[in-house]
């Protein structure tokens, strides 16, 4: 973690993949949580559906980037 502030540090494709893999489920969870917290909002709306699609896309992209290893992002 301390390496991140090294003068020659740069993010790799693997780092990017891991970040996207983490962000995707968080986004999906947020969309589902919004529905759970505000059940009277009138159903699973357009924004929430879009959020879930984007979250899933981020997860897929992230997983596909991890095998690229240490190539710079």
């Amino acid at each position, binding site marked *: 973690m301390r390496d*991140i*502030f*090294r*003068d*020659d*540090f*740069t*993010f790799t*494709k693997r780092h*990017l993949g891991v970040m996207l893999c983490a962000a995707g489920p968080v986004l999906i969870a947020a969309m589902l949580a919004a529905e759970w917290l505000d059940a009277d909002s009138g159903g699973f*709306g*357009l*924004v929430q559906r*879009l959020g879930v699609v984007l979250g899933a896309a981020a997860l897929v*992209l992230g997983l*596909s*980037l991890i*095998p*690229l*290893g240490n*190539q*710079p*992002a």
Partner: protein
Amino acid sequence: MATYTSPSTDSSYASRAALWIGRILLAAAALLLIAHTLIYIHYAIGLMRFPFDYDQGEGFELVDTVMFSHGDWPYRSNEVYPFYASNYPPLFHLILVPFVWVFGPAYWYGRLMGFLGTLITASAIGYAVHREGRHRLIAIFSALAFLASNYIYHVGPLFRQHLFMVMFETVAVVVLARVTDRADRKWPRRTMIAGLALLICAGYTKQLAAATVAAVFVFLFLRNPRRAVAWAVPFAGVAGAIFLFINVSTHGEWWTNIIAANVNTFMPQQALDLFRQWWRLHWALVIMAGLFALYELYFARLSLYTIWWAAAIADSALSGKWGAGDSYFATAIAATCILSGIFAARTLRGMWNPADNPISRRLRVLWNRAGTRTVWIRAAALIAVPALYVIYGLSVIHMPTEGRFFGSLSDALNLTSSYGDRYAFYDSAGWVPGYATIGHVPSQTDINNGWRIVDILCASDKPAMSEEAGFSLQADRDVITNPTQLKNLYENDLYDPTNLVNAIRAHDFSVLIFRAQFYPPPVLDAAYEAYYPSEVIVMNGFNYEIWRPGPSQPERDATAAALADLAPGEEITQPISLEPDAAATWITHMLSRQHWERSESAPAANCTAQHYTRDNETLAVEVCPAGDGAELTFGAVATPE
């Protein structure tokens, strides 16, 4: 003309044919894009000659500029006369201040500046594409493709700050795109300062630039977190210091009017419809841009252009806000033009050099197994790339449909106005909620009708409350209210309309001029009570309603009481200080608010007899001259059992 290299010397007849087809398509694309540019210039000149608001809100930007020219802030309380405040940052208006000093309040210089801003953006796009792709013709295509977009055409030559923000954003991105590329890994200090200063300019032109700022720092952070943070701290310090300075100087009104007032209702369906429309118009470029982004994601380093493109598309979702629209895609269009241009140039020049990684190795195996010959791929690219620019040029067609030249041209192309008789303009975009219904060149009749409204304002020494500022500015009267700003603040519980409502009830304004009635409900209620619609003047295809003062408050109260007390078969007479014709119009307006519908009217001697019905009730009203005013006689007609 083209600088791209031809297929190798052993190319087949088919590849030579592809070369010639490609050249023909390139010529067709060039013709289309040049034609779009000429139409854009024609539109810009037409707008610069028009002395009133063309797009709602332009006049308020001029008011902001005039206030700055007097040394005043436009960020002030909306609750005191003239009930006006701005919801935009100051830079665009500050740049125009010298024009106010020299020429006085006028629209042409703001529109000229907006237009020049789009030319600078187009030039920056062309420069970026040429720097990354080394293909002069595609660089020019990319620049012209930006100007050809229906969305850019709409907003470019307006007295609006939006495309000036896009100019700063684009130039900032072009300046910073290669800042991390030096062999010694150092980021040149001057380039960084210039790029970040341009970003601050973008943000202080319009708040929407925040997404570009985020994209730049994500890019810098990915390249080197330490240096990114080291630059982010002074950047945030300078931007924050300016923010605090303005907020303290305006006693907090900056925060209220710039930030709080912009928290509007979000309509997801509007955003979705606009995204669909944007895709339908720009898909030929978006596909190339998307392929380039995927290439960088898997086979190269992510450039600032790609990160900016993704951020700009995400930011376009804000087009679903109330009051937002197609212009919110302008940054995404600029980024798309750059990415698609780099993709096109590299494809034509065969400049692809994917990194060696598991995915590229697997693709290479599949490629070899399929026996794909490079020469065929090159030949297909020679046709496909210019074909996509031709498709784009045809997708975004928009042009006036009347006039000596455009009338004949639109007839020859069998294009008719998309707006019927409202105005003569063909727009391939069609219409979805949020899409601006503008694009035509105002006619002399529009100009004459604008001056007719100004004459109405000049007939009184009082100010008018107009939904657009241009008439008040031309009549040299105070500009009263910024309607959408009041509405936004009211909906966020940040505006108390009591003072404005009292001013309307007291007839402090000579007339009210409505176009869309985007005022808070209590203000509209007061207007409906104290004024009445007198006439409609059409300008630019929009109806401008002139509302004149009705009777005084005591007369209105007395009339309401008389109507409430009226028994079947009884007659009550009420004098009011309006001329008979005006009195007849006013009483019809007043009764319509109580759901009475006029059923018949008949002149009788000097009087006018009118009948109104509501459910099973009938009301007779006779309007007769009386001294300088009129006399209203109400009679409730008994309904047979």
